[in-house]
């Protein structure tokens, strides 16, 4: 996994292009700097909001992420993948999820899991696009939307968790 070129196509390609487009006078005025930045965050978002989406072929649009970039970010991408697999479909027994996350990672026969992951990626792209771009007209609004999105996200998912709590859990888990 994460060792070859990845291609966004159809409406998702369009969305990713817009998410990485320059919206201000400065070349750094972009919501996401590169395609890969979208790719890293999208599955987390898609998983949390419970949105999956399949590859869209309604248009010829494409945009890529090069192999080198994917390889550079392998650690993060692997971590995210494991996280999702660990927590996906709670009706699966823990053992199976452990296997999916840790043991079966990298297995060439794991096409189901890979597909699930990719569906979360595309779902996440859609959520990001809807929340940050669709409601906006001018670049001020992009900023506003990023802020609103982060705030909503914070309230909905992260509100009650402090970093210390988690660090304590880390200590526990290490034993």
């Amino acid at each position, binding site marked *: 996994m994460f060792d070859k070129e990845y291609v966004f196509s159809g409406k998702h390609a369009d969305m990713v292009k817009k998410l990485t487009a320059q919206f201000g006078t400065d070349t750094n*005025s972009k919501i996401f700097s590169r395609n890969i930045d979208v790719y890293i965050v999208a599955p987390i978002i898609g998983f949390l909001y419970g949105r999956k989406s399949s590859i869209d072929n309604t248009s010829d649009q494409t945009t890529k992420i090069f192999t080198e970039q994917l390889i550079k970010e392998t650690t993060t991408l692997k*971590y995210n993948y494991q996280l999702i697999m660990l*927590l996906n479909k709670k009706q699966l027994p823990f053992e199976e999820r*452990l296997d999916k996350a*840790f043991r079966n990672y990298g297995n060439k026969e794991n096409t189901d899991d890979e597909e699930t992951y990719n569906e979360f990626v595309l779902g996440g792209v859609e959520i990001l696009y809807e929340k940050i771009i669709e409601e906006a007209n001018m670049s001020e609004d992009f900023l506003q939307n990023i802020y609103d999105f982060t705030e909503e996200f914070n309230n909905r998912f992260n509100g009650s968790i402090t970093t210390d709590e988690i660090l304590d859990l880390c200590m526990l888990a290490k034993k």
Partner: protein
Amino acid sequence: MLLKSIKLFNFRQFKGEQEASFSTDIHKNVTVIMGDNGSGKTSFAQAFTWCLYGDTDFADKSMLNKEIENNLMPRQQVSVKVNLDLTHNDIEYNISRAQIYSRDDYGKIKPLSTSFNISYKKNGQQEFVKQSEVESRIKEILPKELSKYFFFDGERIQNFSKQIQRGKSKEFAQAVRGLLGLNAFIEAMEHLKPTSKFGVIGSYNDSYDSSSDDKIREYSNKIQKYQDDLDSIDQRLLQINDSIQIADEKCAELSNKINLHSEGERLQNEKKSLNQKIGKLIMARNQAEGSLLKVFNNNPTAYFAKSLIKQALDTLSNQDIRDKGIPDIHERTIKYLIDRGICVCGTKITFGNDAYVELNKALEYLPPKSIGTIISQFVNESEIRLKTSGFLYEQISDQYKIIRDFESDIDESRTDLSEIDKKLTDVVDVAPYQIDLHKYKDKIAELDREKRDLYQKRGAYLTSRDRLITDRSELTLRDEKNRKIEVYKAYAQYMYDELYALYQESEDKIRKKLENYINEIFRSIYEGGISLKIDSEYNIQILVEDTDGHVFDVEASTAQSLSVIFAFITGIIKIARENNNSIDDDSRMLESEPYPLVMDAPLSSFDKTRIRTICDTLPKIAEQIIIFIKDTDGEIAEEHLGQVVGKRYFFDKKNEFDTIIMQR
């Protein structure tokens, strides 16, 4: 000078032929002409000026009656004429000016030829003044510079008060002197003038030229040249002074304007600094935006995945992970055993046998592949990620607030800016005034420099000239004939000096007299601690005396200006009259003739008491008065002047283009 009558032909509102004759009776010397505004009083007064000088103050230079003009067919011609009968120096003059107008083929009215004639009665015959001499004759009868004060257009007071207070020109002073009877002096002095080639003394110098002594002639030439240069330097100095005065006035005016509008400069500066502030704010805001985006893009995973990480760790710590591994056994151990071929328990391990398969299976659960290891790795990862970017929301929040603060500052500044712009549209930009001010200041400095240079030159020339004169005198004294000429010159010079002293004395006396008369007359019209002073160029200064006896210069109000001018003219007239009637030999040396006063509605600016005073004073001062008044002033004038009025007219205004002069 006395006006006898005037005839108008198609002159402005006066269609056709109209005439008026003026009272010349000694006791009933007032002619009253009554008419409402717009009935033609000003036009009538201008008729005198047009007849004598061919010039009026009207913007429309066409004198032709409008109704006649409208009815004029193409190629048709019509003439406008004014005939003036008057006496001057005991001679009866008829002065007539005519202007022919025609409509051309394009329908436009064009002025064609003008004719101007002066004729007089001599030995029962009418004689014409030669065309080449008419101009100077008019000047003799009444010079144009002074005509404004005798054909008195009281409505245009502003200009006049300025003129009076700041002396029009040398010509004005000359004209006044003429009226005061100093002309004979002036001519005599001109005749003798030591510095002119055409004066008596000059011609004596000329007769040096006929002497055989070339050197003397040479000296004379050089001396004359210096004299000419000195004359032109003096003239230029006068010009410079005038120019400097004008430039000074301009500077004062501009400084005033700049001060009034300095507000505008302040606002401009404010605007500039606001623009700068806005520029900086925008930059800061963009920076903050950049920061926000950087935070958003810098490893956001840990933040977004926080809840997931918690869940995962929860699960991991709660679950009992049955580590299928065997404590303290590593992959290396198994590999070693497999290589060795014998297990710890002694079982043979050969490729593919049960032991081999079981051992290989165990590899799955032993480090580094053991799940425990992997999970520890995972937990470590989680720890690291959390520590590095757990505060994404707080950071974005802070940056966002900063951005919004900048944006509201920018908006506020922009609003301030448009407020200033609104104010600026009312305010005039002072920059051009300041540029002009600099220009004028530079000009003044330049003129000052020139003045200094000229003074230097002048000094040098004077010295050289005088040295040459001395040298020449020495030379000429040797010659017998020339010696005589020197004596004649000395006499002539002495006469000139005497005349000059006498002239100064007389002029001083007369000027003082004029000043006194003017103050007298002025005070009788206008009480109040105001007095007038006249300087050597006949400029008038109005001085106010406050309760402590301090005296200072003031700007006159309309009524005051009117009174000043009135007092000035009547003062001059009074003196002129005195000179004429005087039995005193001294005064007889001053020759002058009285002038009439033609006044166009000055009463409108005065209150009732003043009108009364004026009406009382006037007839006693001037030989002849012709006065234009409005209907509304009529009754008062009649009340106070009634006994001295010799003739009465009124202007019957039929319509805009037609007024008829009717005798009452």
